[in-house]
């Protein structure tokens, strides 16, 4: 059974000019020990999807659909049960560690709090465990770190602290929301490696949200590409690179700067990202898609599953061959 199963999650937030849809039916599943990458442009609904799992969506948001964690619907839990699930089964790593820690409390308090106040461990055991964890995430001077206030530590150090706190209770599922975006380029890979290592050691599942397809490919077992509040393609990194099935994935792959070959002009995906609430009928990407046809804007296009991959495109079969090749040469013409 999968650790997590999202079933047709829809989310809308209130707005003066009527409710605004942010998620338009997201369905996915995460197997035990699996890392799933959630990739897309900003505003595509990646983070919002994570927040529906933790139930930390914006106040007043309307959410429908089921979030099954080990078969239990998280959306239906009472306050006390929700708190237990958050304390024991889920853990979140957010983008900016500096915002995640209370600036007025010491690091030790942050670490111990998650074990003590949330899970009910006794203070002394929690402290010992916190110290072990800090050592495991590669912090040399554990004493200094424990006694420091957040402003005294670097962003990289703080994110290690957050990772230590996240894995502390060996949760079933890690939710990582661009955990390295706010860090220096030099510490990014280090922190990423520590996160990956800690996760694998404990056999935890993870949803890894990022806009960096490359990074997701390196650490994830499967990748889900999101666009305008829905998933347009799910695949393994290898197959995604070799033969993307959705035009948007193709263009995403092409618009990355290559580290080996020099391209005179970087291809750009035409048009601007569409917000979920702006989407009318048919394919959300049709307006920007070089392969779109009049039929693309009609009706609802389903996510068609095929083994462990899935794609949401009306012309999927016709384009399969064409999308396997980069568009780079033509786009720069």
């Amino acid at each position, binding site marked *: 059974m999968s650790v997590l199963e999202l079933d047709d999650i829809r989310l809308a937030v209130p707005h003066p000019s009527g409710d605004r849809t942010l998620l338009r039916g997201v369905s996915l599943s995460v197997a035990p020990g699996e890392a799933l990458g959630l990739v897309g442009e900003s505003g595509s609904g990646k983070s919002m999807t994570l927040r529906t799992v*933790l139930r930390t969506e914006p106040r007043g948001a309307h959410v429908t659909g089921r979030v099954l964690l080990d078969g239990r619907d998280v959306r239906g839990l009472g306050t006390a049960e929700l708190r*237990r699930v*958050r304390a024991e089964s889920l853990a979140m790593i957010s983008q900016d560690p500096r*915002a*995640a820690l*209370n600036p*007025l409390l010491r690091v030790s308090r942050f670490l111990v*709090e998650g074990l003590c106040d949330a899970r009910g461990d006794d203070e002394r055991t929690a402290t010992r465990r916190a110290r072990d964890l800090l050592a495991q995430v590669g912090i040399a001077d554990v004493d200094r770190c424990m006694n420091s206030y957040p*402003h005294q530590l670097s962003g990289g150090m703080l994110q290690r602290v957050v990772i230590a706190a996240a894995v502390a209770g060996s949760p079933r599922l890690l939710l990582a929301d661009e955990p390295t975006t706010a860090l220096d380029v030099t510490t990014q890979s280090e922190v990423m490696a520590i996160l990956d290592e800690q996760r694998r050691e404990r056999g935890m599942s993870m949803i890894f949200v990022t806009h960096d397809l490359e990074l997701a490919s390196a650490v994830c077992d499967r990748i889900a590409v999101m666009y305008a509040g829905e998933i347009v393609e799910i695949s393994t990194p290898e197959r995604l690179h070799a033969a993307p099935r959705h035009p948007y994935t193709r263009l995403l792959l092409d618009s990355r700067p290559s580290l080996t070959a020099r391209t005179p002009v970087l291809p750009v995906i035409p048009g601007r990202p569409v917000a979920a609430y702006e989407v009318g009928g048919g394919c959300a990407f049709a307006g920007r898609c070089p392969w779109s046809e009049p039929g693309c804007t009609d009706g609802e296009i389903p996510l068609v599953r095929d083994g462990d991959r899935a794609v949401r495109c009306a012309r999927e079969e016709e384009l399969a061959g064409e999308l396997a090749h980069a568009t780079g040469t033509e786009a720069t013409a």
Partner: protein
Amino acid sequence: MQRFVIRRLGALAVTLLFSSFVIYGAMYLAPGTPESFLVQGRTVSPEVLASIRAQYGLDDPFLLRYWHWLTGVLTGNLGESLTTRQDVASLLASRIPTTAWLTAYAALLIVVFGVVAGVVAGLRGGLLDTAVLLGSSVGFAIPTFFAALLLMSVFSVTLGWFPVFGAGSGFSDRILHLTLPAVALALPAAAVVARITRTAVVEERDTEHVSVALARGVPWRTVARRHIVRNAMLPVTTIVGVNIAALVAGATVVEHAFTLDGVGALLINAVQQKDFAVVQAVALVLVAVFGVVNLVIDVLYAVIDPRVQLGGESA
């Protein structure tokens, strides 16, 4: 921490020195000569006038007179009242208890009602929140002296619960006498404090570290206490401090309304009678207390907020 306090004390001493110069200089520049005031309109011979001028050192140059006054102040000699010939220091000492009780009582009310109302409104929201917001708007617009009269009219005259005048003696009698004055004095400040506390709590409630703590399964009560209220206390400390420091001067109005024999009443009397020796002394004492309260607040702030650089090397 010690060095921080010492440095702040030094700065306060310098400020007080300049303030004393400003206060003394202002009185020196005031129109009308002290001796004409001393003789109170009686016709006196030039010889008597000269002896008075000599007695009070009125012919000395300004700086010398300032120096005499300042050294006197530093040794606890605040001079002599021009009207009653009383020693200003002992006059002041007899007035301090009433004002000290009154302001301490009002400060307590500000903290208890202002901060608590703000915290509850910010955490709970809803009807209570609206009530606190409305109450603070009204409380803010009511001048202290008008509040004093209203309270007097309702609770003393109509209901007879509290005495109308006087400061009382002994603890319980004092509390009874000073309740209405303290409420009147605390009202506008408590209104401001409640509003700012509410805003601070609401802002803190929406921060990421709070939602992170909740998402980690930390119980709401712990989050509210440890993360929301504690952090909101930073701006609240400042605003409570400013308002408590201001009580030093604001007490004057309430003392006048309730005819309390406090320091403020002494000041107003002295101003009306042009008794500059008393005005100077009281003004300097009030500035000193104002400075000390502000210093205590700064130290407190540094204790609560670990980010404050006590050394002051970096911004």
